[in-house]
């Protein structure tokens, strides 16, 4: 894709050479003795109820029960050079020119950040990015002010992403989900900078909000670069799917580095972008007697391998002809997102199915790899580790959440049919509990166009289709106290008090309003 840059000519500014201390932060002084924080706030008042309960779609390191999950942060290693104290990557003339300020002071600063960052992880060079970026800068909370301001300056300077890019879903939906005073209060207090953030995205090159989705690779959204394409994506589930099912090459970037790389059209080559970094340290053998529980299997794999790359066997038969298609990608989406949530997996291989595995087979396994077997007993054991965090453990469910990551068209139709047919069988039109189904607006529109009758029945059944982020909803003020949620998503389960059930149990609970005995 052609790179488009609109760079405003500004006077060149000398850069502070690397290694010299920059200006000290205002508070910098000889550090004081530690002790308890003084009482009395200097801010606006008491800590609001929603503080700490606004969840992001990526790992928080703490489970919904408040205990550390043992997750490590996004990519904490690198190649051998990553440890070197004086590692310096090689730059092309073009890159050096940017660093020297020949394309403006903003791009010079961005390039400096990228080079310093890449050096820290042992990158030998920068690579040109292709396809399109994906950003997970989606929460306009106060504390993101500084980062939002940084990219606002870039936008004001006329900088743009090298290609139109996709963005995670917004953290709220005031039309279909949060249309009540309590939620609205939280939204307007908690997401004060959402408008500013959206405006930054518009100017940097994101399409309209109807394309907002964590499942950016769906046909309806269209961000599915070819295998081997270098990109700099953020959002754990998108990175996980992209690297694995699409065969693209990206590290698991944090918020900010995604946009920074997008503006420069470059990223440092290290980690999952390299052949060496894509090798598998684990062989995972799925030996369940029937189709595995994809969320459970993903949770088990993520917990076991953490941030290593697993090579998975035993599931090829669920992908006809070894192809990942619109009708089966949701299986990898469910499994993969669970590995990224319970662990920090940025890439997995599936024998006979995913691009890297098709090309290189078991040569992807490193010498001395470890093996993990998931049979029926192990799958059952994994499921038994899922705690019941409802405040009233034996209560009845009060809402169902389907689609994290965002549903594909296939999934919306599948669950739509399962639910409405089950209701028909039970002689009912409306479900016992509201059902929230999360998908990009483009998928919703397609369902309305192609399955109009089903869409009507779903609406009458109590289905709310929304394009917001499910995890963000689960993290809202008071949610865990007032909602006993059920879900098909192991990722949502990992981050919230919502309980995970297989499809048949989920549908029964939706129809009856009761968890079947023994489930």
């Amino acid at each position: 894709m052609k790179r488009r840059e609109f760079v405003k000519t500004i006077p060149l500014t000398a850069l502070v050479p690397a290694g010299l201390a920059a200006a000290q932060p205002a508070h910098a002084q000889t550090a004081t003795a530690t002790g308890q924080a003084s009482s009395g706030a200097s801010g606006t008042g008491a800590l609001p109820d929603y503080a700490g309960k606004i969840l992001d779609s990526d790992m928080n390191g703490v489970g919904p029960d408040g205990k550390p999950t043992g997750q490590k942060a996004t990519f904490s290693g690198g190649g051998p050079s990553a440890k070197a104290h004086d590692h310096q990557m090689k730059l092309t003339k073009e890159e050096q020119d940017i660093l020297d300020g020949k394309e403006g002071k903003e791009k010079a600063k961005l390039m400096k950040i990228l080079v310093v960052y890449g050096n820290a992880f042992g990158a030998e060079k920068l690579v040109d990015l292709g396809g399109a970026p994906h950003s997970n800068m989606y929460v306009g909370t106060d504390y993101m002010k500084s980062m939002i301001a940084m990219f606002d300056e870039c936008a004001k300077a006329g900088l743009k992403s090298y290609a139109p890019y996709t963005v995670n879903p917004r953290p709220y939906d005031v039309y279909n989900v949060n249309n009540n005073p309590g939620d609205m209060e939280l939204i307007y207090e908690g997401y004060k900078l959402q408008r500013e953030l959206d405006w930054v995205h518009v100017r940097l090159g994101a399409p309209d909000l109807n394309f907002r989705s964590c499942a950016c690779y769906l046909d309806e959204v269209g961000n599915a670069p070819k295998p081997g394409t270098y990109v700099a994506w953020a959002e754990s589930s998108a990175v996980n799917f992209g690297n694995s099912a699409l065969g693209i090459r990206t590290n698991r970037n944090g918020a900010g580095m995604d946009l920074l790389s997008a503006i420069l059209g470059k990223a440092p080559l290290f980690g999952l972008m390299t052949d060496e970094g894509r090798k598998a340290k684990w062989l995972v053998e799925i030996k369940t007697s029937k189709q595995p529980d994809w969320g459970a299997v993903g949770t088990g794999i993520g917990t076991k391998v953490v941030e290593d790359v697993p090579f998975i066997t035993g599931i090829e038969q669920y992908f006809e002809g070894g192809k990942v298609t619109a009708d089966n990608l949701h299986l990898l989406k469910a499994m993969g997102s669970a590995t990224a949530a319970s662990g920090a997996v940025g890439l997995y291989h599936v024998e006979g199915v995913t691009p890297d595995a098709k090309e290189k087979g078991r040569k992807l396994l490193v010498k001395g790899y470890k093996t993990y077997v998931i049979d029926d007993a192990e799958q059952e054991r994994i499921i038994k580790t899922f705690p019941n965090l409802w405040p009233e453990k034996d209560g009845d469910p009060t809402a169902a959440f389907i689609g994290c990551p965002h549903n594909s068209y296939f999934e919306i139709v599948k669950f739509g049919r399962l639910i409405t047919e089950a209701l028909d069988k039970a002689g009912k039109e409306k479900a016992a509990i509201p059902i929230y189904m999360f998908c990009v607006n483009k998928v919703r529109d397609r369902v309305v166009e192609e399955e109009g009758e089903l869409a009507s029945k779903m609406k009458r059944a109590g289905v709310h289709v929304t394009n917001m982020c499910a995890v963000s909803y689960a993290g809202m003020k008071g949610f865990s106290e007032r909602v006993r949620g059920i879900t098909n998503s192991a990722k949502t389960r990992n981050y919230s008090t919502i309980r995970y059930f297989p499809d048949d149990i989920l549908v029964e609970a939706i129809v009856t309003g009761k968890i079947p005995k023994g489930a």
Partner: protein
Amino acid sequence: MAKKTFKGRPLLPGKLEGKALVSHQAFNTSASYLENMFAGRTDSAPCTDPANKELYGKDMAGQILCTTQTVGSTMGAGCIMGMNDLGVGFTAMLFSSHIDSIAAAGLFMDDIWNGRRIFTIDQLGDEFLEAVKTGDQISIKEDGTVEVG
């Protein structure tokens, strides 16, 4: 107490004397600054992560954090920048392990874009974290040397 010296990789070098604030478990950036992030507190930065028994309730503003690496939301990079904006960030972050990509992003972005530096050294080794205690006098040098005691 006899001084102990450790050498790490100076990612954002500088010279500083101060007191250590130690967390043997990885520091969860986005969980630790709730009062600052959501109530705009600027006079101090009490650690609000109840899962971190060593730091919970302690004032982190202007301290020298000694830990393994950071964990938590990928928004953590923005949180680091935000806390510096409020004036309650650390003066230095000393990691026994390799720095993680979230902390790296926030620290480098704020240093280079905003000129706000938190001195950062990684790969100081497990022995460093075993030796240093909260309240210990720390001396940081530009070449990545850290003296404890």
